[in-house]
C-alpha cells in the first residue's frame, strides 16, 4: 500500500476491510465504494456480517485489517441500531427521545425550546402526532421504531445507516418508513440498510451488496440477487472456527473484487476453504491453498 488511499467527498470507501471479533473475521476483505447519494441494501444470511459492517462504518468496532475511508465527517453519520439496545424502561417521553436527534445542533446545554416545532414536525411525519408526552415504555414495537426514525430525521445526517429497521414491524409501518427512506434518497442523502426481505430490496433499493462473511456480489440489485449468488451466499456463511489460522491473504494479493463472473477462480476457492481448511493444521501458505482447492473442487 504505497500511495495514500483517496476518497471522494461524501462517499465511503472500503479498502480491504476486515471486521470481526477476537481476530475472527465477520466481514472479510471487502473492497468497494459507497458513492454519495447511494441507496444500498446490505443482504445476506444470518451471521453474514451485515450488522458488523454497519457497526464498522459508524466506527463502533475497530477494523481488524484494511481501512474505511469516510468522505464525510463522523458526525454526519446517523446510525439506527437494532432497537433492543435501548433501555425502554427509562422514564422518558417520546418528545425527549426524538429530541436526542438534535444533539449535533444543541449539544449538552443549548436550549431545545426553539426546536420544539422541528421535533413535532418530525414526529408528525412518522405519524406520531399526539404521542409527544407518552412514555417510551408504553409504545408498541412499530411506534417505537417510528420514534427512532423521527430521531433520524432530526439528526439531519448526510449518511444514514439502518440495521434491520423493519424486523418485527407491520406492513403499514414498513410502507410509511420505506417512503421516508425514499425521500431521504431523493434529498441526496446516502442510505445503507441491512435487510432480510428480498422483495423489499428489489422494490425499493437500486443497489445491493450481498455478503456472507465474504463479499459475494455488489452492484445493481437485479444483477446481485440472482439464484446463483444467493446459493453461493448460503454456502459461504460458515460458522466461526476456533482453530482458524492467521489469514494469508495480505495486501499484496489484490483482494478479489466481488464479481459474480469470477466465482470459480482460484482466488475464490482459496477464500472458500479459509474457514474450514484450518482444522487440519496451522501452517498457512500456498500448500494450504492447494489443499483447499482440491477439497473444494
Amino acid at each position, binding site marked *: 500500500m504505497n500511495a495514500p488511499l483517496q476518497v471522494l467527498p461524501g462517499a465511503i470507501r472500503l479498502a480491504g476491510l476486515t471486521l470481526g471479533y477476537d481476530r475472527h473475521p465477520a466481514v472479510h476483505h471487502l473492497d468497494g465504494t459507497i458513492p454519495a447519494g447511494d441507496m444500498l441494501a446490505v443482504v445476506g444470511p444470518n451471521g453474514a456480517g451485515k450488522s458488523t459492517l454497519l457497526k464498522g462504518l459508524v466506527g463502533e468496532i475497530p477494523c481488524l485489517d484494511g481501512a474505511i475511508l469516510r468522505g464525510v465527517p463522523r458526525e454526519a453519520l446517523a446510525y439506527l441500531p437494532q432497537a433492543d439496545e435501548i433501555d425502554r424502561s427509562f422514564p422518558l417521553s417520546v418528545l425527549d*427521545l426524538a429530541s436526542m436527534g438534535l444533539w449535533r445542533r444543541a*449539544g449538552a446545554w443549548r436550549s431545545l425550546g426553539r426546536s420544539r416545532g422541528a421535533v413535532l414536525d418530525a414526529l408528525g411525519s412518522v405519524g406520531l402526532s399526539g404521542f409527544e408526552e407518552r412514555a417510551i415504555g408504553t409504545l408498541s414495537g412499530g411506534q417505537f421504531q417510528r420514534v427512532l426514525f423521527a430521531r433520524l430525521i432530526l439528526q439531519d445526517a448526510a449518511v444514514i445507516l439502518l440495521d434491520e429497521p423493519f424486523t418485527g414491524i407491520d406492513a403499514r409501518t414498513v410502507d410509511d418508513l420505506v417512503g421516508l427512506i425514499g425521500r431521504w434518497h431523493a434529498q441526496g442523502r446516502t442510505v445503507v440498510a441491512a435487510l432480510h426481505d428480498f422483495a423489499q430490496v428489489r422494490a425499493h433499493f437500486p443497489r445491493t451488496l450481498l455478503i456472507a462473511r465474504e463479499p459475494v456480489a455488489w452492484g445493481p440489485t437485479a444483477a446481485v440477487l440472482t439464484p446463483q449468488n444467493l446459493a453461493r451466499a448460503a454456502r459461504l456463511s460458515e460458522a466461526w472456527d476456533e482453530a482458524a489460522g492467521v489469514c494469508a491473504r495480505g495486501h499484496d494479493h489484490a483482494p478479489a473484487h466481488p464479481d459474480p463472473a469470477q466465482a470459480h477462480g482460484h482466488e475464490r476457492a482459496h477464500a472458500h476453504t479459509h474457514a474450514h481448511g484450518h482444522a487440519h493444521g496451522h501452517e498457512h501458505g500456498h500448500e494450504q491453498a492447494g489443499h483447499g482447492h482440491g477439497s473444494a473442487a
Partner: protein
Amino acid sequence: MSDLLAPFLEFGFMRRALVGCLALSLSAPPLGVFLMLRRMSLMSEAMSHAILPGAAVGFLVAGLSLPAMTLGGLAAGLAVALLAGFVTRSTVLREDASLAAFYLISLAAGVLLVSLRGSQIDLLHILFGTVLALDDPALWLLGGISSLTLFALALLYRPLVMECVDPLFLRTVSRAGGPAHYAFLGLVVVNLVAGFQALGTLLAVGLMLLPAIAARFWARGLSGLIPVSMLVGALSSVIGLALSYRFDLPSGPAIVLAAGALYAVSLVAGPRGGLAWRLVRARHLEA
C-alpha cells in the same frame, strides 16, 4: 410537631447536624435516582466500601481527623471508580463485575489498615459517622459538595440521560458519554465521602438510594423523581435527627431508618404502582 422541632431550636449542635443532612439531601438523592434508573443501585453500596481504605489511611496518618480521612476516602473512591470504569469500557467485564473486583480488594485493604492501629470504637466512628459533632469545616465541606453536585448534574444532565437510555446513540453522535460517565461516578464518590462525615460509610448509601427508590412510587418522569427524592431525603433527615435526640439513638441509623419508613409508606401508598392501589381496580379508559 413542636416536639419534633424543639431540639433543633434548642441546641446548636442539632441545627448543625440538620444543616449538614439537608445539604446532603439535596445532592445525594438525585444521584440515587440515576443509579436506580441505570440498575446500578448496588454499585453505590460497593463504592461506599471502596472508600474505607482511603479513610483508614487518613486515620492512620492523622488520627480521627476529618480532612485527612476525607481526602483519603476521596482518593480511594475515585481510584476505584476510575479503574472500574476503565476496565468496563475496555474489556469484556460488565460494570458490576469489574466494580465488585475492585471494591472487594479495597474493602479488605481498608479493614486490614484499620486493624493495624485503633480500637473497635474508632472503627465504629468510621462506620457510623458523627453527625452530632459536625464542626465548621465539615459543614463547609458538606455545603460545598452539595453545591458542586447540583451544578455538575445540571451540566451533565443531557449526556447523562442519553447515556442511560441509549449509550450507543450517544457514542455515535459525541464523545461526551465517557467523560459524563466518569464525572457521574466521581460525583457518587464525592457524595459518599460527604455522607460518611454525617452517617458513616455504611449508611451514606442509605440517604442516596432510599429516597430515590421511594420517589419511584410518587413520580414517573425524571422531572418529578428528582424533586420528590430530595423531599424524601430532607424529611428523613428531620425525622431521623429528631427521633435520635428524643430516644437517644445513634443518629446515622436513625436517619436511614426514617428514610426506610418513608420508603415503606411509599411502597404501600404511592400512586405510581404502590401496593394499596392494586386493591382498587380503576375502570379502564376508552382508548
